[in-house]
């Protein structure tokens, strides 16, 4: 039988199955299907767990009629025995049911989280072009839980449905008129709260949105705390926070009031149903058609019936939530990589030529690319690595229109989806055809992507450090030796990171390298790229946050370290340019000159870029 954590192989090279992303309902169906055995057992144990609730009114009534009223201890003992048995069986089923609920819920939850990781790995840099980060993360952290909830409610509904049918049958065999009252009144009772649900929902949404704002405000205060404590402004932002907090408090009280109204309605109506039953029942009794025990049973049934009915309404609500989450999950899981691949082999030491800029990367040489516009050399790095160009403008988040409802929300969603589809379309055009960069004369689009990624490695300015020990930050693959690590740490002039971190190699580096200075972070990133030791290494502005002293050291050591391998560095720093084999000068994205640093210094265009601050002195 399935158990948690589930094994997931979708979107990996070892893939044997993947989710059904054709529609939200199919996706939920797939979630249920992959653990059908757990779902089935959940339904069965759920029903048995309900039995004491459903049967105890009957047994209590029987015991009163045949035992208590007649003073027949043996009859009482008999019925009490049956009641005890039902209770014990119910309790056992309850425990089994709880175990399966946890299992089913967590299979869905962990399964979704694993899918998100695998999909993120599969899509790589394309991921951020399809969905904003926040949305991907909310699939893993919150929608995954909704899927667990879907599994739970589906199986609970199966149990509740069976219990409902059972109790109806019991009621009709005892007294059809009272049976009718319960069957007709109970749904009304549960449904009567529905007019309040809309304002309640509205109030909850408003509260949730503002609470989100409040959290971002607190986050904002913490992110800017250095400024607030260094320059001032505690009063302004403290007051702003307090004002929003009070607003959220009022919205919360509104939500609480609507919840109180909902509960009041339910108290009132279930009370009135009880009154109606008792009134009818006592009159039936007075006319001799019903025994006391049976009347007591009916009161018990009426109280019990509210429960399966509530489950049905809950099902309706949670299934819709499940569909919403499924739609979000599909937006992440459905997209495919927009690249076309070929099977032509990539030579171990390729000569790369970029058609757009005309830059040729000679094997075994250390090339620097200088451009007045840093974006142009960064774009060249992307092309050499076969990365889609950086998107202009930030991706919008789904939360932005969370306050919209109904038609406007749908329109907002549709236009967002249309914009995303447009980006995806453009990506397929870019990645599907000729790429424009060739390795030994073969266009990238005819090479296997995996071997290209292994051979050409781009370490750009957005390269990220992952939380872990310093050892893991430098050697995230866990496959290198201390000597190799020391060598690259030296080459990147990053020994001070080791010396400054309590615990040395086992010292903690926080997520995104927090706790290290900008310059330290940059040097650890550089050391990591050097340790990977790819045939072609493309470095984008590797020393932009490093001081001149250290930069001079890095320049010397990195060039030495990479000797014999192909390296391209995008930079305008004379300290680095001084050491490289060759420099390519880009103007308007085209190579206009090539030579050593010393040669190119004669070119005024070159001097104006690399010599900033040089010409106006002395």
């Amino acid at each position: 039988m399935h158990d948690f954590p589930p094994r997931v192989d979708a979107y990996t090279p070892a893939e044997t199955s993947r989710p059904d992303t054709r529609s939200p309902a199919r996706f939920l169906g797939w979630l249920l299907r992959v653990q059908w055995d757990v779902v089935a057992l959940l339904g069965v144990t759920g029903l048995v767990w309900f039995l004491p609730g459903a049967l105890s009114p009957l047994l209590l009534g029987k015991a009163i009629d045949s035992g208590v009223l007649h003073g027949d201890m043996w009859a009482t003992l008999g019925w009490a025995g049956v009641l005890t048995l039902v209770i014990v069986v119910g309790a056992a089923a309850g425990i089994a049911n709880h175990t399966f609920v946890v299992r089913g819920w967590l299979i869905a939850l962990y399964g979704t989280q694993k899918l998100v990781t695998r999909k993120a790995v599969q899509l790589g840099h394309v991921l951020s072009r399809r969905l904003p980060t926040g949305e991907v993360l909310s699939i893993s952290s919150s929608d995954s839980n909704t899927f667990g909830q879907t599994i739970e409610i589906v199986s609970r509904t199966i149990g509740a449905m069976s219990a409902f049918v059972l109790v109806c049958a019991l009621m009709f065999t005892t007294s059809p008129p009272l049976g009718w009252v319960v069957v007709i009144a109970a749904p009304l009772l549960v449904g009567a709260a529905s007019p309040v649900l809309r304002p309640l929902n509205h109030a909850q949404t408003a509260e949730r949105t503002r609470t989100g704002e409040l959290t971002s405000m607190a986050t904002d205060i913490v992110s800017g705390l250095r400024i607030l404590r260094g320059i001032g402004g505690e009063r302004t932002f403290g007051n702003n926070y307090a004002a929003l907090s009070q607003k959220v408090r009022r919205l919360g009280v509104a939500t609480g009031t609507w919840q109180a109204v909902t509960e009041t309605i339910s108290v009132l109506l279930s009370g009135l149903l009880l009154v109606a039953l008792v009134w009818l029942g006592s009159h039936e009794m007075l006319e001799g058609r019903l025994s006391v025990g049976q009347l007591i049973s009916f009161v018990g049934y009426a109280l019990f019936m509210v429960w399966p009915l509530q489950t049905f309404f809950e099902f309706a609500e949670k299934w819709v939530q499940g569909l919403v989450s499924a739609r979000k999950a599909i937006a992440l899981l459905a997209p495919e990589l927009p690249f076309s691949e070929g099977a032509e082999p990539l030579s171990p030491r390729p000569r790369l030529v970029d058609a757009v800029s005309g830059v040729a990367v000679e094997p075994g040489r250390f090339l620097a690319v200088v451009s007045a516009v840093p974006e142009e050399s960064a774009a060249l790095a992307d092309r050499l690595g076969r990365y889609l160009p950086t998107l202009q403008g930030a991706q919008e988040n789904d939360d932005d229109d969370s306050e919209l409802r109904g038609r406007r929300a749908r329109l907002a969603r549709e236009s967002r989806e249309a914009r995303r589809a447009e980006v995806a379309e453009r990506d397929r055009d870019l990645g599907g055809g000729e790429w424009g960069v060739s390795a030994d004369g073969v266009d990238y689009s005819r090479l296997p992507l995996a071997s290209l990624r292994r051979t050409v490695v781009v370490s750009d300015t957005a390269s990220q450090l992952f939380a872990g020990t310093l050892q893991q930050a430098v050697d995230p693959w866990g496959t290198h030796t201390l000597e190799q690590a020391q060598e690259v740490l030296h080459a990147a002039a990053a020994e001070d990171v080791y010396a400054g971190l309590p615990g040395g190699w086992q010292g903690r580096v926080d997520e995104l390298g927090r706790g290290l200075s900008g310059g330290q972070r940059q040097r650890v990133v550089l050391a990591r790229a050097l340790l990977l030791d790819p045939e072609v290494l493309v470095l984008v502005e590797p020393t932009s946050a490093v001081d001149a002293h250290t930069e001079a050291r890095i320049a010397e050591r990195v060039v030495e370290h990479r000797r014999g391998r192909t390296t391209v560095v995008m930079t305008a720093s004379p300290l680095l340019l001084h050491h490289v084999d060759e420099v390519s000068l880009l103007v308007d994205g085209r190579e206009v000159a090539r030579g050593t640093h010393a040669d190119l210094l004669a070119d005024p265009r070159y001097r104006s870029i690399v010599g900033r601050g040089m010409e106006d002195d002395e």
Partner: protein
Amino acid sequence: MTAYRATPDDLAEDRNRRDTRATDWVHGPTDEQVPPELLITPGLPWSDRLAALRRRHRLRGERARAFYAASRTPERGLPVAGNAAAWAFVKRLLRTRKGSFALTVATNLAAAVAGLIVPRLLGNLVDEVTGGATGATQVDPIIGGVIVVVVVQAALVLAARRASAVLGYDLLAAAREEIVDTVLRLPLGEVESASSGDLLTRITSDVSKMSQSVRWAFPQLVMSSVLVVASLVALVLNSAFLALTMSGSLVVLWFATRNYLRHAGAGYITESGTYSQINSTTTETVEGARTVEALGLGERRIAIGDADVEVSSQAERYTMTLRNLFFIFLDISYQLPLVGVVLLGTWGYAEGWVTLGEITTAAIYVQGLVEPMDRLIQVFDTLQVGLAATTRLLGVAEVPEDRVAGDDRPRGTDVVGVDLRFAYRPGVDVLHGIDLDLRPGERLAIVGPSGSGKSTLGRLLAGINGPRTGEVDIGGVDVMTLPLDLLRTEVALVTQEHHVFVGSVRDNIVLARDRQLEGDAVDEAVRDALRAVDALDWVERLPQGLDTVLGHGRVHLTPAQAQQVALARLMVADPHTLVLDEATSLIDPRTARHLEGSMAALMEDRTVIAIAHRLHTAHDADRIAVVIDGRIAELGSHAELLALDGEYARLWRTWRS
């Protein structure tokens, strides 16, 4: 003036410290893994399975307690307060809300009592019909009474739930405002040195856990406990004899609940910790998807994510078993009293001790107890998680103050540092007795390799941290004795960060003087500052001028505009000394050129200490201090240092070549 140069001997001892001949490198995979004893071995016979489950459960319990203990005494980051502090906090909040609290208890009690009258009336009715009532005249008045009570009960429920919501949300608002206040009072030195990750987690995830506790669990605690107590009293009042059926259950429940709660807290706190871990790993994988792709880290990231899930599964299994063990007692002790009512009822009815109506009433009461008791247990679970979160939040307040304001006020604007030493870790000084005398209005550039202590020196000069020995004086007064409000108008540290706050343009700029300026004076000061940094034009073109809300998700500023806002803040603060820590190194060269005018306006007539990466910044300064290994190795003007032919001169030549 002569340039100063340190001897090579001074520097040697520090270099030894940098050696990376490490013994702390670990071979092989270094991820945290779940111990194999915890994994389930399939195919065991049933008898062994139970023993194996018990073993695993014990081990998981130990892991949960270890995690809990570690979370209470973090090795790094901000401190965590004790449970007593959290309770004192709750009590203090409640003390100022006595009326609201009393109203909540009173309305809930009234609603519970009304709810308990209905079963009593039903019992009376049963007695009437079995006692020989023959017509509607005897039955209908009772039913009329039930209708009245139901309506009253409904009204009281409305009042009670509303009172609970008002109290809950009020408590929550007060609690979170106080937390943010505490954060805003964090000592300056702590803010500058600590990584913001810990604080960020506390202010987001811990506040939300505390919210859940305060907003939901606390009112539920009041409601459910009132209802349970009232039901038990009503049960006794109805028939003390029949109430005996509950006594056995209560004893069992007491012990089972106590045992459960003793373990549940650590279990749930561990569980929620494992989910935070999954979330941070996923966040890194998603945000760093390009890095993962570029470096071929996919398999590693998947393995790390799966390991987190495995750890989380173990935490879930622990609480699942805890609940299962608890539910055995719970389910049975909720339901068995019904059997007791039937048995005692038969006996008592035969003996004439109880009426049929009392039996009916007791049966309904016993069934009615299930829900509030169930909820109480959930409430305790949530409260424990909330309590742990609250202790972490209150821990922020336990960071010791790093300065005591004195009464001396600076006379003059000269900045002098004497014998400055500083250590981040005991015994490891990063500055070794620096003396520095700044002349008002001069421009000093500090250059030197990373890790040489130049940023630390800047922070001491700006009064962010106090030195281990020596002191920094402004106008003859130790900076660490100046009140923060005053310090900011004397000296300011400007870093690479140019955070734009969510708030109006005005809020974003008035910062330093938000306590001094009121009304129109604010707008005037803000406009003057914006004009000075060349930013008034574009601000006035914004849709609502100074009232335009900036920041994440609102009006987005270009990096240059954001930098101008940062400069305008400093114009408003108007300190006579500025410490620039790589303030322009992260800006695009094109915007840097555009900002030169704004920057020049800010620096005019001020003493400027510029910690520089780029040599051209140094070259323009009046004096240059070359800091190497915590000492000033060279000090003098550009020309003097070139003449000295030391470290600076060597670099300058490389730069120029």
